[in-house]
């Protein structure tokens, strides 16, 4: 029953999306006002019904209803409850339904909360959002129905890919999806504003919190995903330039560019056409990413079953939406009035350069990600890996950071170079200090990490500069947000630089009692013992790490064995053990047993890393997200409304 109800709700929600689109279009063409009034409630209902359908799918997973194909293929009654729930979105159909749920709920939130936009622009925006939903409803219902029943229910399910059986799954994909799909709001805003020709500061101010909101989730999702890959894959890396990582980075870059350009439009009424263009690009990149991941075009740890039909469907949807939005842009761009002028050396100027660099990095990452597909179509099989990305993105990112040093210290409209210089001596000194220390004590450090840490020093000090000489209590929240986010960039950059420059790695075959030196630690391999988990068995190694200061810690890396369920092959995974210290992390992986000459297997492969400051990378990501949160809170309508209500109340109280 539940499955049938879920499917029915999807159909109704799709119908409501059609209603929003048709009613909105007719209203905008001069139809009766009543039609326009339909759009808000229809959008809200569509979002809620989709969310209920998603909740029903979760219920099917929780009840382990094996008559539903999706549950039978991806779940198992023995699985811990958390992974039954998280398993809902650990597969293609479920994750597409999550996608649609977020798309619908974003529309609903706009319909409920957005009060600043002109009525016709709002209706155009909601109609655009509904148009996006319709395509993806069609995709879900016709080619990826999550509620499909099996003719005969199997006794139990095939289980979830063990790599995905991790708390990270509960958290990472939904967060990333909210960010990914949240960008659809900016896209719809842009389309709406192009339709009604309302592009100016008011529109930018209305769009800004939505952009910030989705960018916060993207930032958290990418940061969490990086940490997840770091400890779950057991390769010790925090970023692999894997195509699927790239397709989450690309919308993040677009979002970063957009939230800076929307600041210029909102504050100075400049860069109007460019802001609209970026809003279109942002969600377009989300769609490209979904297409790449879901069509299985690329080799990646994330790409699942290859299905050409789905790929073609998504390609068509993408072409229609991106092509449509760009056509609209081309038709209306010349009617977007020219913005206010500004000097090159000004806040606006620095933000223009910021945008140029961000979009260039975006283009280069996209090129590297798509190049293998293009090359394959021309008969060459090629893979583009970290060396390419480090070479192209590294230097540009460092230049971007230097622009970030100057930008917040410049005033709007125009500024002069001498004044800027007079605000910088301390930051330049900090950078020089880092550089000198690294050259003297650092030993052999690669050029990119060396420059990275130096620039991090400059940015760390300069990012705090906007607070100097200010009453900290009266400093507005968005300023705090900017300062914290930029400081977070410095922290991340320092972590990346230190980790790549000073990493220590040991790979040994150790017998119980052996001691391995890595970094400041002497790690003793005590031995292994078998342990059993809820649905796996494992070999657990015990390592005792002792610092030169005498403190000792125990690490327990595991090698897990998941039995094959319902005819699938058994799977092994490595669970790394991590020891977090103020100076970095010790990372241990237990490998295979090593047979000795006499056939006894007493030695085990061990891989140990000492990674200096590595956790700064994710700390910085967290700070960037926190900064964006503060910036959003400072600007969100909710807070303004609340303040307005409070002041109104107090006025009423004092009214005669």
């Amino acid at each position, binding site marked *: 029953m539940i499955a049938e109800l879920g499917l029915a709700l999807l159909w109704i929600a799709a119908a409501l999306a059609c209603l929003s689109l048709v009613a909105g279009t007719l209203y905008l063409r001069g139809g009766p006002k009543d039609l326009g009034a339909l759009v808000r409630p229809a959008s809200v209902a569509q979002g809620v019904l989709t969310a209920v359908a998603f909740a029903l799918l979760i219920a099917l997973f929780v009840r382990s209803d094996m008559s539903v194909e999706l549950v039978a293929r991806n779940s198992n009654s023995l699985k811990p409850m958390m992974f039954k729930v998280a398993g809902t979105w650990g597969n293609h159909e479920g994750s597409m339904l999550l996608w649609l749920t977020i798309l619908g709920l974003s529309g609903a939130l706009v319909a409920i909360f957005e009060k600043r936009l002109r009525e016709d622009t709002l209706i155009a925006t909601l109609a655009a959002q509904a148009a996006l939903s319709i395509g993806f409803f069609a995709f879900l219902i016709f080619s990826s129905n999550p509620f499909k029943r099996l003719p005969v229910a199997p006794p139990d399910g095939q289980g979830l890919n063990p790599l995905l059986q991790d708390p990270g799954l509960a958290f990472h994909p939904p967060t990333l999806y909210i960010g990914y799909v949240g960008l659809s709001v900016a896209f719809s805003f842009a389309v709406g504003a192009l339709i009604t020709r309302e592009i100016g500061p008011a529109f930018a101010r209305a769009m800004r919190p939505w952009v910030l909101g989705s960018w916060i989730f993207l930032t958290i999702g990418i940061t969490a995903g990086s940490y997840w890959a770091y400890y779950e894959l057991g390769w010790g890396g925090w970023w692999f330039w894997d195509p699927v990582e790239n397709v989450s980075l690309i919308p993040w870059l677009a979002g970063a560019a957009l939230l800076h350009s929307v600041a210029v439009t909102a504050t100075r009424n400049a860069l109007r056409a460019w802001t609209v263009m970026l809003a279109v690009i942002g969600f377009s990149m989300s769609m490209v990413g979904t297409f790449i991941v879901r069509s299985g075009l690329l080799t990646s740890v994330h790409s699942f079953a290859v299905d050409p039909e789905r790929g073609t469907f998504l390609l068509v949807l993408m072409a229609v939406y991106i092509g449509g939005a760009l056509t609209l842009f081309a038709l209306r761009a010349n009617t977007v009035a020219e913005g206010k002028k500004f000097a090159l050396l000004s806040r606006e100027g620095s933000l223009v350069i910021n945008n*140029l660099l961000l979009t260039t990095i975006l283009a280069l990452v996209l090129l590297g990600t798509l190049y293998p597909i293009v090359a394959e179509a021309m008969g060459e099989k090629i893979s583009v890996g970290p060396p390419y990305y480090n070479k192209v993105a590294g230097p540009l990112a460092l230049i971007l950071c230097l622009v970030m040093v100057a930008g917040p210290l410049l005033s709007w409209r125009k500024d002069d170079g001498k004044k800027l210089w007079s605000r910088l001596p301390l930051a330049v000194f900090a950078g020089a200090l880092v550089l000198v220390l690294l050259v003297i004590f650092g030993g052999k450090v690669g050029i990119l990490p060396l420059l990275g840490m130096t620039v991090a020093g400059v940015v760390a000090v300069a990012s705090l500069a906007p607070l100097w000489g200010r009453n900290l209590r009266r400093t507005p929240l968005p300023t705090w947000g900017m300062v914290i986010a930029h400081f977070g960039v410095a922290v991340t950059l320092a972590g990346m630089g230190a980790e790549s420059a000073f990493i220590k790695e040991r790979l040994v075959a150790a017998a119980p009692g052996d001691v391995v030196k890595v970094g400041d630690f002497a790690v003793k391999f005590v031995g292994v013992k078998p342990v059993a988990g809820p649905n796996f068995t494992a070999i657990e190694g015990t390592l005792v790490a002792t610092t030169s200061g005498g403190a000792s810690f125990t690490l327990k890396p595991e090698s897990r064995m998941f039995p094959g369920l319902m005819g*699938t092959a058994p799977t092994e995974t490595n669970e790394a053990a991590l020891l977090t210290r103020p100076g970095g992390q010790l990372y241990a992986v237990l490998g295979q047993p090593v047979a000795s000459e006499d056939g006894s297997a007493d030695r085990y492969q061990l891989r140990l890393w000492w990674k200096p400051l590595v956790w700064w990378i994710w700390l910085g990501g967290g700070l960037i997200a926190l900064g964006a949160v503060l910036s959003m809170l400072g600007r969100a309508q909710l807070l303004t409304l609340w303040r307005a209500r409070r002041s109104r109340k107090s006025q009423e109280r004092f009214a005669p």
Partner: protein
Amino acid sequence: MKAKHQRLILALVALVGVAGAGVLAASALRDEAAYFRTPVEIQDGKATVGEAMRLGGMVAAGSIKRQSDGLTIRFVATDGKASVPVEYMGIVPDLFGEESGMVADGRMRADGTFVADRILAKHDERYMPPQMGEMPKGVAKAQQKT
């Protein structure tokens, strides 16, 4: 006049930037992109010694030999038509085994051995590098059996 000047400068900066980025990308792609090779292509002499590349194939039955240091393994990668000896030092991934598919990043040594820096294996039947799908039928069948 001044505003026009300004926009001209901005446009020029943007143009130079875009051109620079294009050159950077082209040179990086030429230097850093790695070819995906199969054993038969290597036998045909398509791989240059020392050039970074990605090798895909099936691990031949009975070919995995662990060296006495306990860390280095040698095995033979095959695509049914030709085979290449591979050497790898490190912990092999989950699900790496004989008669199953693998993809390795590394380079050819002058003695005809492929030295791998990293090995990727088929994680389960739902994950398979697309390149493996294009291997000869026999290989694909052998994979299905495992």
